[in-house]
């Protein structure tokens, strides 16, 4: 599965003949997949078809039994994965934000050495909150009081503040109403510097390419 680009740049993400077995069962088989930089792609398919396993392979949380994964041309290995993760953002369907008030939660990953240089991006927080249709007042609220849709948008904002360029989104608009979902799409779609790989049953949201795992098709 490939989008032909004619550029010399390596794809933002490449899976090359990846096979993953979990508990003796094959969940991903001989899967090859290129996502050029800036493209917005959806992985879809029935439950258990291996969509989340593919995201886990890109993040280095699951090591493929066969094949290789590349991020911006670099193979994901035990040595490279630590630096490569700083180019990736992962937002789950039910994001794990931890305890505390929203402002603290947003600031937490900036304590990591890899993110310290981006700390000044926190100044963009109020602007991003408005853009994603969240009230500024939420910043002082405990995370436990947020709705599922608010948590999803806070997690997205956190990833944006961390200055990541490749977004791995796992059903990330599932809890959003139509207006909030549109706000998210309006942020990502025009950004040629941001690559999105979205695992979703909604094939309209990020549709430069839609890959139905086990039954793929392209849309250009």
């Amino acid at each position, binding site marked *: 599965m490939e989008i032909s680009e004619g550029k010399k740049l390596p794809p933002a993400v490449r899976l090359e003949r990846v096979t993953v077995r979990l508990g003796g069962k094959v969940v991903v088989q001989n899967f090859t997949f290129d996502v050029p930089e800036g493209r917005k792609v959806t992985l879809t398919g029935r439950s258990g078809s291996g969509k989340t396993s593919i995201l886990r392979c890109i993040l280095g*949380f699951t090591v493929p039994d066969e094949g290789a994964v590349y991020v911006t041309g670099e193979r994901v290995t035990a*040595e490279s*994965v630590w630096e490569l*993760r700083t180019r990736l953002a992962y937002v789950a369907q039910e994001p794990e934000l931890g305890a505390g008030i929203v402002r603290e939660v947003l600031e937490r*990953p900036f304590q990591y*050495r*890899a*993110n310290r240089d981006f700390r000044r991006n926190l100044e963009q927080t109020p602007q991003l909150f408005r853009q994603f249709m969240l009230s500024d007042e939420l910043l002082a609220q405990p995370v436990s009081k947020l709705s599922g849709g608010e948590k999803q948008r806070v997690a997205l904002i956190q990833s944006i503040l961390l200055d990541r360029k490749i977004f791995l989104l796992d059903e990330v608009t599932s809890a959003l109403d139509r207006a909030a979902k549109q706000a998210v799409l309006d942020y990502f779609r025009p950004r040629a510097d941001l690559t999105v790989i979205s695992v979703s049953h909604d094939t309209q949201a990020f549709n430069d390419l839609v890959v139905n795992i086990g039954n793929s098709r392209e849309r250009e």
Partner: protein
Amino acid sequence: MSETVDIGYANLALAYILLLIPLFLIVWYRVPMLGQTIQGIVRMTLQLVLVGLYLEVVFRLDYLWLNGLWLLVMITVADVSVVRGTGLRLRFFALPLFAALLVGLGAPLFFFIGVVLRRPMPLEAQFAIPIGGMILGNCLRADIIGIRNFYEAIHKDEKAFLNALAQGARLGEATRPYLRNAAHAALAPTVAVMATVGIVSLPGMMTGVILAGADPLTAIKYQIAIMIAIFSGTALTVALAIWLTMKRSFTGYGTLDERIFRK
């Protein structure tokens, strides 16, 4: 102060009469632990008699190498007990934990004997074995709590842990909150004991020194020094145990190696 008052074997046998109280309660209320209790009492008696006989020989000979060997046996037994108590696999944890216990016991023990007591030989049986046993016993309890807390928390909280890695945390950064909580859980009982010692309880060391005929002020000096040695030993051994076992418990990608857990 008076000399140590020995207990005759017949008098010791009388002490077992006191056991009738808990045994009666267990039978009367049908608490399902009668067999376990009897087994525990028999084991305690046999183990202490055997160790007493062995220590008689060790104390009489007082060979430094034999005392050191006995301490190594104590560490080995503690090592296996800790790993069993944590529900983790021996082959992943036995060696790093042995090293942690060795350092966590050795450092405060030798400081106590060499610097505080100013004894010329740090492996003198009279001091090394009882004080080593007290430090090791506390390290054992703290390690079980600390190590189990650390790995179980990461296992249960996998989503949050992986989220930290996905956000660019190095392994040390991602595990720090779990290490903090594990250290807190492991050290809190010792801190609580330190805060109430002398009021809520008269600890074993102090009681032993008083029973041996020393005056109470000498006993409290021993007790203060041993409490500090125990606290240092437990802190050192918990931190070292987690730090050393981490190298075998996580994959190169930072994920927890599931093979460390006993099924």
